[in-house]
Each structure stands twice: as structure tokens, then as C-alpha cells.
């Protein structure tokens, strides 16, 4: 696994209100940090892509986007 590759999802901090939907849908891929912002985790690389798609769909502010980085097979 290459740590230099971009994560398969990104969160726009200007749009995020920290609702935490992404962390509820895909807890291995997102968390809400102490500043109340959702952030993508390294675990996003091995999270089932369908969960990432769900997180994008359920984000109430459209703050999450899928990137071009491939998602590795879950271990």
C-alpha cells in the first residue's frame, strides 16, 4: 500500500458541517475530529467502495467526493 497516493475520498472543509454521517456510514474511512470536521482516514483505502459511495450520497452538504485513487481490496 502506498501512503503517498491520495486517499480515495476527500472532504471539503469549507462545506463540511461535521454532521458525522460519513463516519456513521463508513467508520473505517472517516472520523469527526476535535474541531468538528469530518476527515478521511487511511482506512478509506481498504474500505469497501460501496460504503464510500454511500458516504458521498448521504453527506448532507455534498462535502465528500470520490477521487481517482483506486480502492484496495479489503483485507
Amino acid at each position: 500500500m502506498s501512503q503517498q497516493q491520495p486517499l480515495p475520498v476527500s472532504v471539503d472543509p469549507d462545506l463540511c458541517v461535521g454532521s458525522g454521517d460519513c463516519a456513521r456510514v463508513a467508520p473505517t474511512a472517516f472520523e469527526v475530529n476535535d474541531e468538528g470536521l469530518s476527515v478521511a482516514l487511511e482506512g478509506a483505502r481498504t474500505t469497501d467502495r460501496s460504503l464510500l459511495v454511500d458516504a458521498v450520497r448521504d453527506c448532507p452538504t455534498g462535502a465528500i467526493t470520490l477521487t481517482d485513487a483506486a480502492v484496495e481490496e479489503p483485507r
Partner: protein
Amino acid sequence: MTEEVVFDHYDQVREAMYHPDLSRGMDPRSAEEGNPRADVLSVLHGDEHKARRRIENPLFRRSALVEYERELFPKVLAEICARDAVGQVDLFELGGALSVVLAARRTGIDHDGSAEQLQELFGHVKIIAQASAIMDVVGDRDQVRAEVMAVLQRFDERYVQPSLRRRERLLDGDPDGSGEEAPHDLLTVALRRRRAGDATFDGGVLVREAGLYLHGGSHTSAQTLCNTFYYLLGHDGTQRDAALVERAAADPLFAQRCVHETLRLRPTTPRIKRVAVADARVAGIDVVEGARVVMDVVSANQDAELFGAHPERFDPDRVVRDDVAMWGLSFGAGPHICIGRSVAGGFPLHGEATHDDVGQAHLHGLVALMVQAVAARGVRRDPQHDPVLDERTDRGTRWLHFPVRFPDGDGDRTPNAHAAHTARSGGPTARNL
């Protein structure tokens, strides 16, 4: 005359909900300084709103929702249903007593768990709820505002200030030696910020925000419970299969489907309103600064392409399109999406939403658990009394009273008999949750 723009198609309404130039601060006499909703989360706009959400969203983290749904609420249900769900009952009051316990916990309002205090708290909620619907009030809005301000003052003196004092002591390091830690609730969050020099919750904001939390966490849930049984018990005039109630009693996912279908058809706020704070183009329509924007959620939620055939019908087995939620736009969308939707409604349902689809980590929401418990206790229509709509607003989805009948006596048919045993044998109860 102020221009008014109405959106009633799903995509239009959704786009309007996201639009940064449409504000909820459309009722200055409620939302300005010294009024019942001044500076509360739901009327803030833009960066102020975003900053407040970021402070309060952690109260709704997954771990808290799991604790509510799997540990705490089953005990509340078992205790209160065993006591109150007997014979002739007002389902609205029962739903209020059930949901106000965890709403108080999340807010940080201490109480003794007695039926009297829960009734008093929910009594406050019923008045505060009028302020949240002020734009839909039929009659004298100034009188409503005055009543709400008076209740907020009593709520502050009797509940908020004592609860704050206890949390102050806990933050000071447990001087009583009880071993208790400061809880994770709105009041504690506010106190921590005050101690850090942050004035966000000063100047009366905290009691208004606490009132909003208590109302938002109980009144809407109790109303949705009633609305769900409005359909399940056939009050909509449809001869409905009694087996639906049995299915809701047996299967929390089906109970959740009933709740989401109810929310789609009878949303808490059928027409969501905004005011344009700048000239804007919304869903292809030019909206001038100062115009009122009305989002007709009921119409938006009845798009057959999204929600399937006969979208006007109550059909908890309906399959919706994968990219929409079964509850439609009833919790809103965009930055102002209901902060407590996952507590009340659980996780959204998309597509077929089978048990396999939603998986083990799925949360059903506290309203579905209430529906399941009420169904399991053998609820049926009250043959002598019809439900009474609350006509103090023009929403048409609020009830004043919702009479139902349960079997007389201690017919303990709740789905979680273990929780009932725990409650009776000294485990956590509504008093000490």
C-alpha cells in the same frame, strides 16, 4: 408586498435547501435578541451556523447513537411502557414521556425520572414547540412568543440552572467524591466552552438552545409516533391489514420502514420556509433579496420516479430509488439538515433496504423502537375517541391528542423482556440514565 417563490419538485426543493443565500432567519420577532429563538442553532445562517454545528455535532456521534438505541432506550421503553401503556392512553403523551428521557440526557437536564417530572418537562416542550412553528401559527403570534418566554424562564430556573450547577461541580473535579465524570451533553459542552473564554452560549442562548434540544428530541418524535399509527390503525380512511402492526412488533426494520414512509407523507414541517438574503438564482429561478421561499416537502416527496408507483399511498414495503432516502426530504438537506435525524430516524433507507442490505451495524432510530414496543403491547384504536389535530398551526401533521387502547393489566409484551427485568431489578432506569 414581499415576493414569494414556491418550489415543489424534489430536485428544486433539494437545491433550495443547499443554497447559501437562503436563510432560516425569516421571523425577526422570534429570532432577534430577546426573543424565544434568538441565536439558536436552527435559525443561524452561514458561518455562524456552521461553527455552531461543528460544536454540537459531536453530541450525535455513532457511539452515542449506539448507546441510545441498544443500551439505554430499551430500558426506558420497558419501564415506561410497563407503567403507562395500559388501558386507554394518549399516544402523544406516551411518546413524549418516552422520548423526553433521552432528549433530557442529551441536553444535560437532570430530573428524578418520576412521571410528574417527565410530564412537566414534556409540558414545557409542548409550549416551546409553538415557537419552532411560529411561521405556521394560526392566531396571535405575540401571545405565543410571550408564553414561550415565560416557559423558558421556568425551565431555566427549575431545570437548567440546577443542572448547570451540578456540572460545574463535576468539572471542578468531583469534590463530592462520587466518582462521577462530567457527562457528554449540551450543557457540559457549553460550560467547557465558557471556561475556555468562548461566549457562544452566553446571554441566554444556552437556555434557548436547551429548549430547542428538548423540543427537537421529543415533540417531533412523539408526533411521528402518532402519525405512524395514524396510518397503521387506518385513521387515514384506508382499510389496512392488521398484520402490519404485527409485522412492526416483530421486526424493527419493518417498524423503521413504517416510520420513514410516514415521515415522507406527513413530515414534521410540510412547508419549509427561507428568506433570500441576497439576489440569487435557485433551481433556475431568479429570487430577489428579501423574497420568501417556500419548499413544499409533501409534494417533493411524492415524485413517482423517485419513490415508486402511487407515491401518495402509505406503503411501508415500497422500494425507492437508490439515490434518495425513503423519508424523502422530510429531515431537510444541506447545512440545516436535522441534527438529530439519526437519533429519531436511524440510518436512511435506500432502494430495497433489506436486512442484508442494511447489515448488522444498522440503526433503526428511537421512533421505530417506540413503534415496535407500542405495537408489541397490542395497541388498537380507541373505539370511542378519535385523534384530535393540533389546529394552533396550519401544519396539519401535529396532534393534540391521539387516544389508543392497550390491553388492561400488566400485559408485558414488550420486545425486550430482559430490559424490563433489568429495570425492575435495579439496573439503569429513566431516573438515572
